[in-house]
């Protein structure tokens, strides 16, 4: 396994090297990522922030091999995601748990079946063992009593919690969160963050959170990556952002401070 050291000497689990990704637009190609390089340290929480359309979700899809970069390399545990064969990619994905923006629950399956799906399909556990493990996770995420409901019968926050429960089933090393609090009210948002903090403390996974829920999400972050017009700025801690001299980051810091003030008055 290739080990790359990050600035704070943590082992790098994900590494972007000169990655470019473009999409067709009305006038030629829209450059979403322009030769960006950064690393994501193992066992830490990295927040990827930026405005809409700046490539936050694209970054996650590139990590998972759901999209290929136009150029550059993405290394996960030293393996170049774009060059992997189908089976190797499948193997690599077993390291990941993903909480999708819309939770991506299977509409035709109940809460229990959704959470049990990775165990049924990827392990040789007996029905009884699966039932016990799913019940334990549902209890951990405060979902007991909702096992027989279908996704359409759940609130937005509950769907996210079911998505998190499903993502945790195979004991992932890296958990990717795509906008985990979008569309939730402040109470549900806090609820998700509380459950995230608790499960991360208990399970110790590497977390990558893509979010525009600023500044709240920074409270969870060890490292922050800001995406803006195809370029990235990496900060070893959320506190470092305010020392940046770049105009867009200055504007960003002011906006964040305004948000904090508004939050304080609320």
């Amino acid at each position, binding site marked *: 396994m290739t080990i790359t050291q990050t600035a704070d000497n943590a082992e790098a689990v994900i590494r972007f090297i000169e990655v470019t990704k473009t999409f067709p637009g009305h006038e030629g190609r829209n450059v979403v990522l322009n030769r960006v390089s950064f690393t994501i340290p193992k066992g830490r929480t990295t927040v990827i922030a930026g405005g809409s359309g700046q490539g936050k979700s694209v970054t996650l899809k590139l990590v*998972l091999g759901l999209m290929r970069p136009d150029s550059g390399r993405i290394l996960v545990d030293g393996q170049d995601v774009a060059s992997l064969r189908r089976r190797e990619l*499948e*193997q690599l994905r077993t390291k990941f748990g993903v909480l*999708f923006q819309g939770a*991506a629950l299977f509409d035709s399956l109940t809460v229990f079946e959704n959470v049990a799906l990775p165990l049924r*399909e990827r392990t040789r556990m007996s029905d009884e063992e699966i039932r016990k493990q799913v019940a334990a996770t549902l209890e951990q995420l405060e979902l007991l009593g909702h096992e027989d409901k279908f996704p359409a019968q759940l609130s937005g926050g509950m769907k996210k919690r079911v998505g998190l429960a499903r993502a945790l089933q195979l004991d992932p090393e890296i958990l990717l969160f795509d906008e985990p609090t979008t569309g939730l009210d402040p109470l549900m948002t806090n609820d998700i963050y509380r459950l995230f903090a608790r499960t991360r403390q208990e399970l110790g996974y590497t977390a990558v959170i893509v979010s525009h829920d600023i500044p709240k999400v920074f409270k969870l972050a060890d490292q922050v990556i800001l995406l803006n017009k195809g370029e990235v700025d990496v900060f070893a801690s959320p506190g470092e952002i305010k020392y940046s001299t770049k105009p867009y980051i200055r504007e960003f810091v002011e906006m964040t401070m305004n948000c904090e003030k508004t939050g304080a008055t609320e």
Partner: protein
Amino acid sequence: MQRMPQSDIPFLLRPIARLGDRTIYVLRDLGRMGVFLMFGVAGVFKHPFRFREVVKQLGFIGAGSMAVIFFTAISSGMVLGLQGYYSLHKFGAEGMLGSAVSLTLIMELGPVLTALMVTGRAGSAMCAEIGIMRISEQIDALECMAIDPFRYLISPKFLAALISVPLLTAMFDVVGIFGGYLAGVKLMGVNSGAFFSSMQQSVTNHDIRLGIVKSFVFGLLFVWICTGRGYFVQKIRGAGFGAESVSRVTTQAVVIASISVLIFDYLITAVML
């Protein structure tokens, strides 16, 4: 592949550029669909076999289509009986009605109409279901859990279609012949013995084999096109986004599948007859 903006291309060359662009798009789309077919078929043989899902799909594609197939078959058979009687009566050859009705149904109408009805009923639903799963990231979620979406989602539909369509076609043939019998013998007074003996004399194993081959090919065609268009809903140019893209692609899938059935009907007949 990078597309040049239209404004960068000299005015007179734009039609050629558009033609080239369209050709490349169609070739890529065909390639994508070819790989999809390969994975869809291969997924049938992958472990673990999804028996329950195959049974569920057999119920949906097969048992669920029986009523539609019954009514289509009985009406087609009765129309054939009446039309056949009208034509044959002119030559005093009403006794050949059984032969005309059964050959037309077994070799042509049975496989084609069954495929068209199943495409309209089950193919459209499959395309919409998979398209919605694609746009709501459910297929991405499967891939992220290292669950092969072909084995889990597509291949059970392939297998169920390959079992259901030939059986539905056989049912169509029997019900259609009964419809022809009703119209020709019971309504128009053709001799019952002549009806069945002409059928027995003219229908050969080769004719039945032709019908079975057609039904297998049509079954594969409809399930491949309908599931494939749904699977690639986000890659289809001009389909738009969200719910609109699913509705457009579903319509497109049904049209392409129906036309393909008719084209392959001619090709198989030309090769096997």
